[in-house]
């Protein structure tokens, strides 16, 4: 083979090798690390998988926040005004977490149907509503 052509072939082979490795890595990692969003209605109707990391969100129900006296354990309900679910969390809640505020939680749904959150997110602008929540609210409104 012509030496220049041989070199080109080698370069293309290296690029192909790196690309396939990277794509393999990406696909594998994406499979493991995407978190689907479920609305309170989805979860109440049993559409969400148990014991898999998912996201859930809605408005925090007034008067539903219960705290433990000794630890940082806290429990509250979120709603999309059709159904509500209970979320439990141990840790510090974000500044904008309050009753009536839209929040998104990431965690797992346990066998009792309680959502055990590992992370609770409330956005830093009170006018701003995460698109997941506004869509979930719209979907719930449009149902009869």
């Amino acid at each position, binding site marked *: 083979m012509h030496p220049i052509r041989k070199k080109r072939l080698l370069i293309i082979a290296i690029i192909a090798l790196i690309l396939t490795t990277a794509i393999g890595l990406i696909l594998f990692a994406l499979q493991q690390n995407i978190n689907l969003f479920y609305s309170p209605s989805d979860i109440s109707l049993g559409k969400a998988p148990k014991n898999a990391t998912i996201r859930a969100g809605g408005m925090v129900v007034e008067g539903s926040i219960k705290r433990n006296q000794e630890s940082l354990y806290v429990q509250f309900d979120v709603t999309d005004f059709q159904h509500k679910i209970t979320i439990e969390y141990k840790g510090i809640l974000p*500044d904008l977490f309050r009753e009536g505020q839209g929040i998104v939680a990431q965690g797992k749904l346990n066998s009792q149907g309680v959502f055990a959150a590992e992370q609770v997110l409330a956005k830093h602008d009170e006018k701003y509503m995460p698109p997941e929540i506004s869509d979930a609210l719209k979907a719930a409104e449009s149902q009869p």
Partner: protein
Amino acid sequence: MLPEIGQFTLILALFFASSLSILPLVGYWKKSLILTATARPLTLIVACLVFISFLTLSASFLLDDFSVLYVSQNSNSQLPIYYKFSALWGGHEGSLLLWALVLSAWSSAVALRLKQLPQEIGAIVLAVLGAVSTGFLAFLIFTSSPFVRLLPDSPIDGGDLNPVLQDFGLIVHPPILYMGYVGFSVAFAFAIAALITGQMNSAWARWARPWTAVSWAFLTLGITLGSWWAYYELGWGGWWFWDPVENASFMPWLAGTALLHSLAVTEKRGVFKSWTVLLAIFTFSLSLLGAFLVRSGVLTSVHSFAADPTRGMFILALLVIFVGGSLLLYALRATQVRSSIAFGITGREAWLLLNNILLTVLTLTVLLGTLYPLLFDALGLGKISVGAPYFNSVFTPIALLLIVFMGIGPLSKWKNTSWNALWRPCLLALVLSALLSSALVYFNSFSLMAWVSLSVAFWVLFLSLLDWLNKISLGREGLLVRACKLPRNYYAMILAHVGVVVSLVGVLLVSVNSHEVMVRLSPSESSLVAGYEFRFDSMEEVKGPNYVSERGQFTVFKDEKQVAELYPEKRFFTTRQQVMTEAALDAGFTRDLYVSLGEKLEDSSWGVRIYVKSFVRWIWLGGLFMVAGGLLAALDKRYRRRVEVA
């Protein structure tokens, strides 16, 4: 009156910018020197007009003119004066005006250094920058004017600036980041000029290089500042969240880094010409994509402004026009370019090619992770988020591989390198770095990942050192003389590469050796974290200019000795009725102590977040090294030569 002047000058600027994007090109086409000569004055006029517009908006902020809607939404009479000024870019409209201002500043910088370029190329570069300005000014005027008035019912006081933004970070982070983002439009303009004139030779690479290096340095500094700001302001103690908007700034950085390296090859050896042009287009496109992601609110992020679909569509249209147009031009013209110079598999060209491949792959992994939720949603598969674990598991191995090659590349020579010149230092560095990192891992009981990363870091350091020693030991002069005679570019490269290593060490040690606890503490109770005793002494109430604050006092002891006093705050901003956490930290070269308050619980106890983070400062220190490297590279003497033929 002032806001009307601002609006009027902005419209005038749009008019002049659109003439700027047409006249010089017509001049080039018709071979009319008069028309091409309009580029420079038009650029300067646009810059002056945008600057006047910017000044009027600043004046409205400083004079508390709440009849201006944007001012009333983002400022308040009680706001400290420096935040009144920086509140200008605290919202969507003003930050776009800042963007336009920065763009016109870059354009005038090019216009003022025009003598270095052949006239026709300079004119086309300015025309392309004018076209970009036209797009952004039209966006500003038609969808997001900051000068809209609330008359006659203007409010008595403003709604105040978002408390998260009332910080030093807002004053410096956006302008510097924009300097970087927007600076890549200069490299883009050079690339388009090269395509239009068909002169894709090493000359265009030499002109584009210093501009690219300076923008890259600004972008690096902007990202570093952003990371540092997020770390102390958001109260979670993280320095990088793989948030879509962070990714939006990181993608142009990765592509820009690739561009810097491929420009070097194009300038020195005249190869990779069309690839370099393509990279310049990609880097600019990724900057625009970043603007789209931030402005349109399509992705959930800490940076999202309230979403407005028309704005998103407008930016998307701009993106399609610029990216589509330039790729079309590329498809038409790039085929004419043939690189005829061959290079060996061990030559520096090959190592830089590898650098470019890996950086491009890294950019793609970030791009895919960022846009995947959008794709998923568009296909109707549901709403998802791609978590940090995706980025960590994909990005880390490829980045480490890149850094391994970053050690070898500088040893190589153009065209071909003898294997002997490569394998000897490599073997020595391999043995030394493996031994050293094994020792460190043994004494600290770190993980395998830590061992690998530390070895890679030492590997680069040893190889750089060996290469430097090798370079200065040749020749008859003294070592010091030879060390001073090495080109500035060489030291710039070493500085930037060492910066990467310093950041790598910081990232690694933070991730393997950080301690975080969330506890419930009452006054006089204490908590022991990583050998440090954090004692919660007391709480007191403090009044700020536009907030009231509950301030805690913590004393930190190590081995019975007091090491720091920390005052974390919980501020309540009266106008917005919003609570903000102000973390307190004691910064150190090898460790940071970090306390932030959670909520007040019933029995006067507080939820408290305590961190001890090792070497976290190194992440940003490395960033500063890279910035210094980028600036030093741009200052190289050979970029100041003028063209002899006018």
